[in-house]
């Protein structure tokens, strides 16, 4: 295809100016001289690799999900093994599905479509391979370290620091360079909307990952977040929420914008809508993070921003849905017969439903009911299974015949996959909404006398167990569909030709000195110049220019994303009134630090919150609501997001040591009907006393006021406290010989939780100098 041909087609349409004014117009282009025509091929081998990884990790991640879902009804399924407890496997499931399954799907989409949209081979085959193998190694590292209890305990950012560094290198150094290199070498002047979404994905994920993961290293696989308490919560949910935005939304919108019109063979509904919803989405999404923290110790203004920006996000999200669904106008008859389009239609519809439910759940009063319940779990699975899963399946069903260069093995099986998957999602989503609303209502129910109707927490767990079974059935159906998909994939691959055909493409290189077509005059006549300028701005011609300037485009994406950080994160860090100091809140003792490390390692935050909201039913059940100043030494914060078990913020002093040890050894021995896994290994394993000092020192580096003596004496202090607790334990119930066991450290931590609020004030400093220092510090 010669360049003159391209130009001839491009300017073939009628010339008069109508509609929004994006029509082709006669104009002179200084690059009328076409560049030299170049021959090249697309690198599809790398796309096939990512595609295979998507299928494999999808199976692994969702099997892990099904396993932990069943564990919640049959807790014995951890078999008493520390590596198989819910707290350690749930991060494995979420990381596998998000970063391994969806991640590889994103790379499949980007590596396939970017080459075609740029009419250029990927910048570097080597970087592509490094990206592929690097990412798979990261996944394997995650699959090994998470069950072993190496975690930073921040949701969807659990991986420890060496893996975090690897992620940054692979994402920015291999993937980012490869992608932007391809953009730089493109032979298509303007960037299509799919590429805008890819740009937003790459830069924003890089920023979020780096800033959320900042930590001080305390050991080969141990680190402490540099942020504490409220600040850590804001950073984490700025990240957590925007992992949803920029890992599970923007790249999939890019995927949709390429593969859906390709499969439907229809033009995209509205270019103008693409522009408006792209920029509004990118700008608004970042702000919405605090909606994960309503009614917590977060300042009220941040909570309000989180809610309002979530509501404002409703339409920008639906802009994507509209552009997807309306692109199918004229192709609906094919939706009936084509499994690819079926998956896309349902995927986009689930996107629409999730992005309606999301803003709704972000409304504070609704969130008061839904937060900490399974409603949230249902919500994310509607998005993950429906939107991410189905868009991925649609894409791969479309890619298979093209990349394996042979017809799909079984269309019938694909149909079965579609229907099983769809029913599975509904079973999952509805059962979790049901469970969430049921449990939320039970938590807040008072009887006529004013007492809690369900004072015993485990009652509210027993009530939703039937829904857990429905969820497991729904998940099994979805997984069965996935297995059919994998079979179809394998059989289609098997029928591939001995040698793939690699057609040679040709396109003219881009030339420098391109001049944009002149912006048409504003049709407004009887208004001031400013009015005309405003009219021209909304006509969006300027955007056409941006689309050929990737650097400028990327800079503006970064600006759009960073603005929110300036308004939300910076004030949370700098304004003191956001986190009023509480004089009686003291740093953890060295043994409590060990206990907290264990709490983190076991992933207790996956089931227990440490955040009592100022809601009466909650303060009756758990005690005084949480204050921001109580968390200033919490690196990382452990507020949690789901109460599968009760809140633990004020569990300190509520039970005896003896009760805790018995309960950890076998929860059902103390609480009939409990679904908590047994932690008997904590009674066997030794405390790693030699790590106490480096850990305390690292905590001092992130700002905990430990003195030099505190650090030097940390190990001895830990031993002394452990002996004291072991003696108390023996005195209480007969457990003996636990003074070096991990359980003692965990008990020390649990007994400290929430106690400082009512602690006696510290004694007055003895010397005037110390008093003066204290005064200064204030």
């Amino acid at each position, binding site marked *: 295809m010669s360049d003159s041909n391209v130009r001839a087609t491009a300017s073939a349409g009628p010339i008069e100016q109508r509609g929004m004014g994006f029509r082709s117009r006669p104009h002179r282009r200084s690059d009328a001289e076409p560049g030299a025509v170049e021959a090249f091929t697309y690198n599809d081998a790398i796309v096939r690799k990512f595609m295979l990884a998507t299928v494999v990790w999808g199976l692994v991640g969702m099997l892990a999900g099904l396993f932990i879902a069943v564990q919640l009804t049959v807790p014995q399924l951890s078999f008493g093994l520390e590596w198989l407890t819910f707290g350690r496997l749930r991060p494995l499931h979420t990381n596998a599905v998000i970063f391994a399954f969806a991640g590889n799907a994103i790379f499949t989409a980007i590596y396939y479509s970017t080459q075609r949209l740029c009419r250029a081979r990927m910048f570097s085959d080597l970087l592509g391979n490094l990206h592929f193998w690097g990412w798979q190694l990261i996944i394997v590292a995650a699959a090994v370290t998470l069950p072993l209890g190496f975690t930073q305990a921040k949701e969807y950012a659990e991986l420890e620091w060496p893996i975090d560094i690897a992620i940054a290198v692979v994402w920015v150094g291999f993937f980012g360079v490869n992608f932007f290199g391809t953009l730089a070498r493109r032979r298509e002047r303007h960037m299509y909307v799919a590429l805008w979404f890819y740009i937003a994905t790459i830069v924003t994920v890089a920023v979020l990952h780096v800033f959320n993961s900042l930590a001080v290293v305390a050991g080969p696989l141990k680190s402490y977040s540099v942020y504490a308490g409220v600040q850590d919560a804001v950073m984490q949910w700025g990240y957590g929420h925007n992992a949803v935005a920029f890992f599970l939304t923007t790249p999939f919108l890019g995927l949709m914008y390429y593969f859906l019109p390709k499969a439907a063979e229809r*033009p995209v509904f509205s270019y103008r809508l693409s522009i*408006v919803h792209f920029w509004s989405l990118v700008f608004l999404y970042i702000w919405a993070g605090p909606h994960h923290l309503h009614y917590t110790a977060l300042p009220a203004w941040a909570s*309000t921003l989180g809610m309002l920006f979530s509501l404002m996000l409703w339409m920008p999200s639906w802009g994507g849905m509209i552009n997807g669904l309306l692109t199918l106008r004229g192709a609906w008859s094919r939706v009936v017969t084509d499994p690819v389009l079926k998956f896309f239609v349902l995927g986009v519809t689930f996107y629409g439903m999730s992005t309606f439910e999301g803003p709704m759940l972000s409304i504070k009063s609704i969130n008061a009911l839904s937060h900490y319940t399974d409603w949230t779990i249902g919500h994310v699975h509607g998005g993950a299974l429906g939107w991410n899963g189905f868009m991925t399946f649609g894409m791969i069903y479309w890619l298979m015949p093209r990349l394996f260069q042979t017809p799909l093995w079984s269309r019938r099986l694909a149909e079965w996959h579609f229907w099983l998957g769809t029913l599975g999602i509904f079973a999952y989503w509805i059962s979790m909404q049901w469970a969430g609303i049921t449990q939320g209502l039970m938590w807040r129910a008072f009887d006529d*006398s004013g007492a809690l109707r369900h004072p015993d927490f485990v009652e509210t767990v027993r009530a939703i167990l039937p829904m857990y079974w429905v969820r497991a059935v729904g998940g099994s159906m979805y997984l069965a569909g996935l297995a059919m998909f994998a079979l179809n994939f394998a059989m289609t691959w098997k029928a591939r030709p001995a040698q793939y055909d690699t057609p040679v493409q040709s396109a003219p290189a881009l030339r420098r000195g391109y001049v944009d077509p002149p912006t048409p005059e504003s049709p407004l006549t009887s208004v001031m110049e400013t009015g005309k300028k405003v009219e021209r701005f909304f006509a969006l011609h300027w955007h056409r220019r941006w689309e050929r300037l990737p650097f400028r485009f990327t800079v503006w994406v970064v600006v759009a994303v960073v603005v929110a950080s300036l308004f939300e994160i910076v004030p949370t860090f700098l304004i003191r009134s956001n986190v009023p100091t509480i004089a009686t809140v003291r740093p953890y003792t060295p043994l409590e630090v060990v206990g907290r490390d264990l709490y983190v390692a076991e992933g207790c935050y996956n089931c227990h919150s440490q955040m009592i909201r100022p809601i009466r039913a909650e303060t009756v059940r758990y005690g005084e609501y949480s204050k921001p100043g109580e968390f200033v030494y919490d690196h990382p914060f452990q507020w949690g997001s789901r109460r599968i078990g009760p809140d633990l913020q004020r569990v300190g*002093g509520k039970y005896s040591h*003896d009760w805790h040890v018995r309960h950890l050894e076998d929860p059902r021995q*103390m609480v009939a009907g409990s679904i908590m896994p047994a932690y008997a290994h904590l009674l066997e394993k030794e405390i790693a006393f030699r790590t106490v000092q480096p850990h305390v020192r690292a905590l001092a580096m992130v700002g905990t006021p430990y003195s030099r003596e505190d650090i030097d004496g940390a190990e001895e202090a830990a031993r002394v406290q452990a002996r004291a607790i072991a003696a108390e334990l023996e005195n209480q119930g007969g457990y003996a010989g636990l003074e070096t066991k991990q359980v003692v450290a965990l008990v020390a931590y649990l007994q400290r939780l929430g106690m400082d609020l009512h602690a006696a004030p510290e004694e007055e400093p003895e010397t005037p100098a110390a008093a003066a220092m204290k005064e200064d510090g204030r």
Partner: protein
Amino acid sequence: MAYRAPDDAGENLMDHSYDGIQEYDNPTPSWWHGLFWASIVFAAVYTAFWHFSEFSWSVHDMHRHQEAMHYKKLFGALGDLKPDEATMLKMMSDEKWRMVGSTIFAANCTQCHAGDGGGINGPNLTDDAYLNVRTLEDMYAIVTKGNVPKGMPAWENRLQANERILVAAYAASLRGARAASPRPPEGEVIAPWPAASPIPGG
């Protein structure tokens, strides 16, 4: 039959094509614009009311109000109780207040003392042997201050005085009840409570 869009003739199809993908120059739907602007206006009004007007209240104000109403509902009829023997006896025999005590017990005590008071790793409350308790006032004292070294938590920062009196009265009223799997007696056998307390199901 394929749905034929009004613009299907291609007249507002734009001139560019990316790998064969073309785009229409359709305007954004008006209801879309409408809702988007409505959400922005709502955000402004909401912020103005909740953060810049004197009519608003905070979640903490709301909680204070709820807490006051709750205590009024719970104990409005009682006033501030005194932890003396007479009050305890009254609360042990009054079925309504005994029920309130039982819900406090269910929320806080059953995990060590069992739902029926028979004891799990906490002492049996149904027998006549007691540790640290000789009188009904002691019952209140042990709930309030606990016996932390031996494992009984102190409840003074967790429960209101009235709640502690009611739960202590309820716990005392369990004496003599039948437990499913009682722990063996611990401590010393003490004299019966001053007046016979009714023991439902005992």
